[in-house]
């Protein structure tokens, strides 16, 4: 059984004279017990998909279901069995940590005690602050409380819309460890993120840009499909090196990647010595063939699709 199913979902918004397709014919499914990632930048359409699946927004076209319940007809049933953590902090700022949790337990006809085991290892970190108002919590703590509230009625499916945006790397790592443990308890999870490095922590991912899905598969398979040879290049002067690499006639693309530049050439049967000669002014030059990451794949897919990141609305 598929836990989540979307078929040809379209959602457009009208802004003045323009009609913008936020979600443009999107189809995918999430299997039971899967941790599925929706990976893409702001404005890709991720939040609209979340809101359609959690029955908070009606699609213009297409159909969608959660646990085989239709998002339009069966919305009341769906709301009982899903947990949703929206992108924007949406708990009651004037209630304390404990009051928020109790509130969410009560509206789902349950108690904190009944499902405490599910939230225990998250909530213990919050317990010292249980009498603090939610509005006065730190970013990381708010995020943990929001997750606890989304879990307190023991949902079958968890929807997490950009739970780690603006969160520092330490808290991000901790958050993903929590998700792994929830998955082990049998909860299916749909999570969205703009951070490409989090993609590899998902079972399967959909890469999304401008409302369109560019690719769906396991991170492993997506990386394996990367069509070109990829080289990591570094030297003493990285800024000059980038300019030089970009002006090399056989360069297809070159982007900075941390302490190296990632280079794709037009011709895979190419003699590297030609490049080395071209770059002979660089000191301590190092060129190494490497395996691509999800971010390399995403960038090459963006470049290939017509939906360039640079497109301005007409």
């Amino acid at each position, binding site marked *: 059984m598929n836990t989540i199913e979307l078929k040809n979902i379209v959602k457009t918004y009208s*802004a*003045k004279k*323009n009609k913008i397709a936020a979600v443009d014919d999107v189809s995918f499914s999430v299997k039971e017990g899967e941790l599925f990632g929706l990976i*893409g*930048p*702001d*404005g*890709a359409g991720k939040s609209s998909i979340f809101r359609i699946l959690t029955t908070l927004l009606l699609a213009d076209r297409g159909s969608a279901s959660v646990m085989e319940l239709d998002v339009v007809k069966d919305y009341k049933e769906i709301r009982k069995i899903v947990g949703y953590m929206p992108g924007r902090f949406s708990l009651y700022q004037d209630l304390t940590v404990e009051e928020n949790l109790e509130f969410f337990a009560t509206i789902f006809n349950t108690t904190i005690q009944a499902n405490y085991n599910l939230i225990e290892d998250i909530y213990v970190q919050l317990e010292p602050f249980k009498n603090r108002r939610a509005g006065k*919590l*730190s*970013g*990381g*703590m708010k995020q943990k409380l929001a997750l606890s509230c989304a879990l307190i009625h023991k949902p079958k499916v968890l929807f997490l819309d950009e739970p780690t*945006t*603006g*969160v*520092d*790397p*330490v*808290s991000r*790592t901790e958050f993903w460890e929590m998700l792994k443990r929830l998955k082990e308890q049998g909860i299916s999870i749909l999570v969205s993120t*703009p*951070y*490409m490095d989090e993609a590899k922590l998902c079972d399967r991912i959909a890469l999304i*840009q401008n409302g369109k899905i560019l690719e769906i598969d396991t991170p492993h398979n997506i990386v394996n499909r990367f069509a070109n040879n990829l080289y990591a290049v570094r030297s003493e002067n*990285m*800024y000059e090196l*980038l300019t030089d690499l970009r002006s090399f006639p056989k360069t297809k693309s070159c*982007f*900075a*990647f*941390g*302490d190296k530049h990632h280079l794709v050439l037009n011709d895979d049967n190419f003699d590297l010595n030609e490049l080395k000669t071209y770059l002979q002014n660089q000191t301590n030059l190092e060129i190494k063939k490497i395996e691509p990451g999800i*971010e390399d794949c*995403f*960038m090459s897919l*963006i*470049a290939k699709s017509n939906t360039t*990141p*640079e*497109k*301005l*609305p007409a």
Partner: protein
Amino acid sequence: MNNEIVIKTDKLTKKFGDFIAANELTFEIYRGEIFGFLGANGAGKTTAMKMLIGISKPSSGDANIAGFDVYKDTENIKRSIGYMSQKFSLYEDLTVKENITLFGGIYGLNDDEIETKCNELLEKLNLQNDANKLVGSLPLGWKQKLAFSTAIFHTPKIVFLDEPTGGVDPITRRQFWDMIYEAAHNGITVFVTTHYMDEAEYCDRVSIMVDGVIKALDSPAELKKQFNAKSMDDVFLMLARSAKRGD
């Protein structure tokens, strides 16, 4: 990059009651340098940045920004710097051109200068045909690039960037860094915070703040050597894991 110091702090401290948000920060930043200011949520980055841009008075210590004192010359500091953050950058209800004109005026450029520089900027960003569009109608990546250009429109000595690339797609994120490199190359000092650790690698030097204190400050290569780490991500995790407080 050269040896002219444009930011100098000495035991710069900010307390809120008993809470020491920023504790004796001491560092120097040079002209044309790209300086990455890293730290976990709540480490005290925003507090420190507010003191440096002259909108929050330090509790103790000294700081000199572009030649001006953070206690006495805050108005001059504001004129010598540019600032952009992901949260606030441009007015969505004004057009591209109106935003540029507004910020040019605030920073004291005259009408002729604004007119000339505005046209240059629009041409450079390839936005000539979009000058009269509302900023709110632009895609996020474009807004961020325009916001950065506006922040350095008056050729400030220093530009402060608070998580400038959050949420933008990976290609636009690189294009944004191309603009940062160019600004630094032209002698503007770039002071930048980010949660993307690959971006820490693009900085000439970075500092890592933990619980209000600067725990490490050096070039990315030196920091990796010092902490025997493969990446800046590892360095950051090693230091920030020891943090005791949240924000």
